[in-house]
């Protein structure tokens, strides 16, 4: 297990990857990616029990589904730096003939990805299916998933939320990235979500909160707490408050960087705020 400083270094390096990837192709989604960096770094490097290498079935290991597929720059950087594919391949993000499609897919055979996502609201159903398969296989490993808060406006989520509680899918930990922002503005202006945790609770989930999802130690503690609550008859939901664009001052406190790449000057400033730690790709 890496120590906290090593994980923090990785967080900074992943932020640099995200910024450089979207800048290079002048497209992609830096805001949500930066907001969930601590979460995904902790998940893949501290929390999940992973086998070496990759196979689709993932039997005998924890598996993860990214439902809000637009934060692919973060997903790709974390997967590459965890060893799923060469770090150099981050250079091909969103380019023609790349395995690193704009939104994650299995179609090009990128190791680490188990389902296409990007058309929102579908990941929780898939995660439930994979959790049911684990139970059928007698595999006591866990299934993790990440969802945007705005994504909860898609009705399919509520079918899935109802199903998971009703059928005691208690080997699933679904995390909601509660950054309060979506493309058109604040979630509460676009279509109010209200108290997300309460909603999961009344549907029958075990709910906990990570008050600051950009505090690595809080994220690790929250995920460990969530692990301890699995296997008790209820699916587990983490409502994790994050700051979109975290780590880059001008990208924070706004929805403006949901799907916009920085200019050359903006990139230079952003990278200055996140000095190289483990080496750029």
């Amino acid at each position, binding site marked *: 297990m890496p120590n906290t400083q090593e994980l923090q270094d990785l967080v900074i390096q992943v932020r640099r990857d995200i910024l450089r990837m979207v800048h290079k192709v002048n497209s992609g989604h830096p805001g949500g990616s930066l907001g969930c960096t601590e979460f995904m770094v902790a998940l893949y490097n501290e929390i999940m029990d992973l086998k070496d290498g990759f196979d689709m*079935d*993932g039997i005998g290991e924890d598996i993860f589904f990214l439902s809000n597929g637009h934060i692919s720059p973060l997903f790709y950087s974390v997967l590459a730096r965890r060893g799923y594919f060469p770090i150099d391949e981050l250079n091909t993000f969103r380019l023609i003939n790349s395995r690193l499609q704009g939104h994650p897919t*299995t179609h090009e055979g990128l190791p680490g990805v188990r389902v*296409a996502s990007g058309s929102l609201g579908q990941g929780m159903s*898939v995660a439930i299916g994979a959790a049911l398969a684990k139970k*059928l*296989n007698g595999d006591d490993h866990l299934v993790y998933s990440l969802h945007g808060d705005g994504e909860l406006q898609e009705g399919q989520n509520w079918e899935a939320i109802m199903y998971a509680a009703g059928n005691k899918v208690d080997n699933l930990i679904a995390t909601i990235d509660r950054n309060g922002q979506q493309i058109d503005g604040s979630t509460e202006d676009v279509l109010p979500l209200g108290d997300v945790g309460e909603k999961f609770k009344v549907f029958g989930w075990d709910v906990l909160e990570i008050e600051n999802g950009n505090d690595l130690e809080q994220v690790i503690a929250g995920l460990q707490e969530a692990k301890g609550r699995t296997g008790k008859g209820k699916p587990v939901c983490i409502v994790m408050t994050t700051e979109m664009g975290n780590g880059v001052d001008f990208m924070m406190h706004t929805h403006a960087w949901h799907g916009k790449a920085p200019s050359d000057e903006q990139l230079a400033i952003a990278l200055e705020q996140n000095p190289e730690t483990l080496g750029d790709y």
Partner: protein
Amino acid sequence: MTKYTDQGKQDTRSGYGAGMTELGRTNPNVVALCADLIGSLKIDTFIKENPERFFQVGIAEANMMGIAAGLTIGGKIPFASTFANFATGRVYDQIRQSIAYSDKNVKICASHAGLTLGEDGATHQILEDIGLMKMLPGMTVINPCDYNQTKAATIAIAEHHGPVYLRFGRPKVANFTPVDQKFEIGKALMLNEGTDVTILATGHLVWQSLLAAEALENQGISAEVINIHTIKPLDDKAILDSVKKTGCVVTAEEHNYLGGLGESVARVLATHHPTPQEFVATKDTFGESGTPDQLMEKYGLNNKAIEAAVLKVLKRK
């Protein structure tokens, strides 16, 4: 003429149920999902014998398709079943992204396809599903013709790796294919050799085509009848071999002529061997309430419509 006789009318959905019963006993990786329509899909025996391998998702088809996709991760072979309307159009994006584009080994099994579910009317009928599903890259599309073939197809698709759309129906229809006939995906079946015209039929229209061929024979017309149970991948060779001999073709399906079997055949012919073709299919319309026989008569999908189409296409040779 016909060497096929009706062994007794049965519904194709019961063929699906029987296939599932057998798969439940022979393939431990097969799991079943249903959206509040167990009785209609005839899977009671599978559920009774394998309760741990059945997932009742309730009236939530989008979630069902996603759960089915997830179950493949871990090596399961999910058979997700409901009415054809709710198994396709209602959940098209879930099938597109989570199943087809994600290369998931999900079998989408759809009953009550076409007009012949009858009295429930157009909200529950679907005449667009073949088109919707065949347009998805990598999706196999199968429409068996009777009970025996539906059972055989259900068993066969479990052995095929990749997403499959299996379409069948509600009414009791002639059961005429051999009980032990092996189902080969993508391999058209010659039912009656002929020299004047080719009839390419799928689903419930296969039996109607055999009836038509018998009547045509009495008028001195030799009709070749081929059962195109697999619409995708289409058996191009069987189609071309036949039309090169007969010089004209009628396609017959319980589906809109836009997007159905007929258009797939027309593409093959236009590319390799342009041939006069007539379409027995619905003509860009929704259905309505009525008995199955009344609907097939009104919308021109029975043996008489096939006969008329043959006489018409013969004049175009």
